[in-house]
Each structure stands twice: as C-alpha cells, then as structure tokens.
C-alpha cells in the first residue's frame, strides 16, 4: 500500500547528447595537455567545464603506455571534464575504465570509422529551443528525413543516422544537422552540418548556396572562409582530405 502513495523519485530515460571528442594521438599527458591548454586559452570560456569524450581509435600505443590517471587529472586542471572513452581496443578500454573512464558507444556507429586526424570539432550549438520533427525511417534503402516546411531562424533539425532532405529554404539563424548527407532544394542560408557522426564522405547539396556555416565530419567553414565558393548557385560541398571543396552542381 505504502509503495503506491510514495512520490516518484526518478525516471530513467534514454538521451542523446552532443559531445566533443578529444582524439588522442600521443599517449603522454605531458605532450597532450600543454597543447590543449594553449588551444583553449585562445577560446576563453568556450569549453569551461565542458564534458569531453576521449577518443582512443587513433592511438598507436600499448594500453600500459597511456597514463589515463595523469590525463584525467590534467584535464580537470584545465577545467575540462572527461566522462568516458570511445573506440580503441578492448584492452585499451579496460585500462581507461580503471581510471574511471567508461567506454561510450557512439550512436549508430558499430565500428569507428577512420577519422581525419586533425578534425576541428564543431562546438555543440545551444540547446534546441524548438521541437524538431523526428526522422521517419519508413520505406526501403538508406534512411532519409524529409522536411517540407521552411526551417526558420532558431529552429534546429537533426536527422539522426540518416540523410536530411529539405524541400524549402533554410533561413539564416536555423541549423540543420544530419549524420548523412544534406540536400536543400531551396536556399541554404543557415548552418548545415553533414556527416555529424564523423562521416567524412557525407556531402551537402544546396540549390541556392548562401550559408552561414557548413561542416562535414567536424571540419567547418564559416561564411568568411568560403573563399571562391559559388555563392547563390547550385552547389555541392564535400571533404577532400582536410580540404572542403565547393563545386557547382549540374
């Protein structure tokens, strides 16, 4: 009887989060930390107390060579909060776990794709304020999410594990994100982030290319960095190595 009248103490729900991944290339904290501190000093406040995932996939070292405890301590001193690891061998994951870093599983990723080594992470945008439609995975073949209404300033749409097709405009101040490709059959004036689950083969297509920012697999270009991109024209964006390429469509 009494258990029925007790107020609910908690609810357990799944949640998806946007996190930065610190891909280790060198196992030594003394090599990683100063460079990291230097980079973050140039963006003060940007990552203060930001949770971060330590990426182990690129690390060519034996598990016993990595000083996880030293790394965790050093990160805390930089006011960065490591919360777990992604990728890496079984032994490496275990070594990290002993230092209090549990392995996290990336959404939709069975095996970690080989990432571009110097990917610049896109800062996680402010929390979505407007509800974004959920992707519809009905139909066969590769999943795609279709948006037929203009995406307006302040709206944020994420096609998780899917391509995103927008048949209207994406206005300035809006943000569209897809784990796969992005197609905009209208004007792209906001931000477009393709290959968000670290897929460097993802592309962005827009009928009228006029974006604030485009990003593929963590590489990004703001409007000022678009150079000789065909602004206002039908355009395809893809990643070639670490270079973003803008080519006219058709």
């Amino acid at each position, binding site marked *: 009887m009494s258990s029925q009248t007790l107020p609910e103490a908690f609810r357990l729900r799944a949640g998806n989060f946007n996190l930065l991944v610190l891909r280790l290339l060198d196992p030594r904290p003394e090599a990683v930390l100063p460079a990291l501190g230097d980079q973050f000093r140039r963006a003060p406040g940007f990552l203060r107390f930001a949770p971060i995932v330590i990426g182990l996939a690129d690390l060519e070292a034996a598990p016993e060579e990595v000083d996880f405890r030293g790394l965790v301590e050093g990160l805390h001193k930089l006011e960065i909060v490591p919360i777990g690891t992604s990728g890496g061998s079984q032994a490496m994951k275990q070594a990290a776990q002993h230092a209090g870093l549990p392995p996290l599983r990336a959404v939709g990723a069975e095996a970690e794709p080989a990432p571009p080594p110097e990917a610049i992470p896109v800062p996680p945008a402010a929390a979505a304020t407007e509800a974004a439609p959920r992707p519809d995975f009905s139909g066969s073949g590769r999943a795609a999410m279709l948006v037929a209404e203009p995406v307006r*300033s*302040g*709206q944020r749409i994420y096609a998780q594990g899917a391509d995103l097709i927008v048949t209207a*405009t994406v*206005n300035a101040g809006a943000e569209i994100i897809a784990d796969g490709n992005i197609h905009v059959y209208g004007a792209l004036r906001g931000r477009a982030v393709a290959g968000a689950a670290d897929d460097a083969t993802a592309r962005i297509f827009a009928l009228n290319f006029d974006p604030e920012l485009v990003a593929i697999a963590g590489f990004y270009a703001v409007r000022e960095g678009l150079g000789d991109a065909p602004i206002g024209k039908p355009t395809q964006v893809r990643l070639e190595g670490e270079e973003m390429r803008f080519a006219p469509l058709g």
Partner: protein
Amino acid sequence: MAQVIVVTSGKGGVGKTTTSAAVATGLAQRGKKTVVIDFDVGLRNLDLIMGVERRVVFDIVNVIQGEARLNQALIRDKRVDTLAILPASQTRDKDALTREGVSTIIEELSADFDYILCDSPAGIEKGALLALYFADQAIVVTNPEVSSVRDSDRILGVLQSKSKRAEEKKDKVKEHLLVTRYDPNRVERGEMLKLEDVREILAIPLLGVIPENESVLKASNTGTPVIMDTESVAGQAYKDAVGRFLGEDLPHRFLEPAKKPGLFQRLFGGRAA
C-alpha cells in the same frame, strides 16, 4: 466560434499595435463583431492608438485576477459599434498574465465576437507566447529590413511549435505576412529590402504592404486608427489588407515610387496619393 488572430513580429517598433488597431477597426467596419486585446502588459499602447485611454477603468490583469468582470473591462468603441477593446495594465508586468486566465477570457469572448485580435508585445518571452498561444491565424508584421525579417522568421517557428494548435497537433496556425513601412523610393535606392526578398525568405502568403506614410504617426497621436483616414495611402492599404483577409482578391498597391513627388506631396505625403 470566434477566430483568434495574433498580430505579432518578434521585433519591436515595426507596427504591431498600429496594425492591430487598423485591422480590428477594419473588420468591425465590415460588420464583424471584433475585440482587440492588448497583451503588452506594462507597456500598454493600444488604448492610445485607439483613442480610448481616458476611458480605461479595468484591464486584462484585473479580469484575470478576478477584480473585475470581463464586461466591466471591455471598452466599446464610440465610432464603430461592433468594436471593443480590452486594455493592458500599465502598472503590472507580464507575469500577471496566466495561460488559464487568458484561456478563460478568450473562451468568454468567443461567445460574443467573430474575431478576437491579440496585439502581441515584442520579443519571444511570456507575453508574446501567451498572445500567440490561442491563435487560429497570425498576422506577422515585418519591416523591409534584415533584422525584422529574421525576427519574423523566428516568430513563425515559434508559432509552429509553441501555439496551442501546434501542441495539440491540429491544423497549423494560418499565417499572413504584412509588410509595413515600405518605402518604394528607398527600395529603389537599395536601402530597403525588396518585397520579393522578404516574401522569399518568409515564404508565407502576403496579406498586404503598408507604405511608409506620415498619416500613421498623425493617426497614432490623435488616437484614430489609420484605417479611418480613408484619404491616406496607409489607410487604403490597410483597408485592402482587411478585404484580402476576408477573402477578397485585390491587387497590391503602392509598391512603386510615386512619380515626381511635388512639394505638396512631400509635405502631405498621405493626402496626395
């Protein structure tokens, strides 16, 4: 059932209250029983534009807090007998508005009126959210200027996600674009956004274009909704917009620069068109 129409914009100073007063008066002149509610609690203006500021006894906050009955707070217009105004409070803030209170007021007004216009405050905070929450239709007031267009875009997104219709997954709020303070001469000189650009970005049906016109300021200062100034271009443009709102197919006027404005026209811009 009355239709609830929110007049909104995101940005301030673009002409929401002028539009609320003009459209409400225009609908009432067509014989529609119309009430216009000022949601800008703390910065009330609608009563001034409507010329009823000396007749305000109770306001919307009094009604919500049970200090007055709705009928005591409603001010009947002396010029158009199918028009009523529910003023905002000047001495409270937006927290005095509650969704339940507003819901009760709108329900009660629905029985007596054909149209309920909600004059939204600027911004996307509580007052603006409450003004648009119950809307069946929205008149989005936009100036031909980038920041105004972007704020209107934002408010359209809010309408699609935070209105009652959106929450209950009913048919979406019917959206109308009203471009105000349009100056064809400045558009021609490239100082203002072109109408086509505004329409292209916001991608909602165009209800009307109100030209920049001195008659609007004069109307505000004399407490006469500008639609009553039938000589002025702004008044005529509002009249057209009301006609279109009621389903009439009217061509858009005042989109081209007036030919060679003479001294008389420059002095009395509204009168000459």
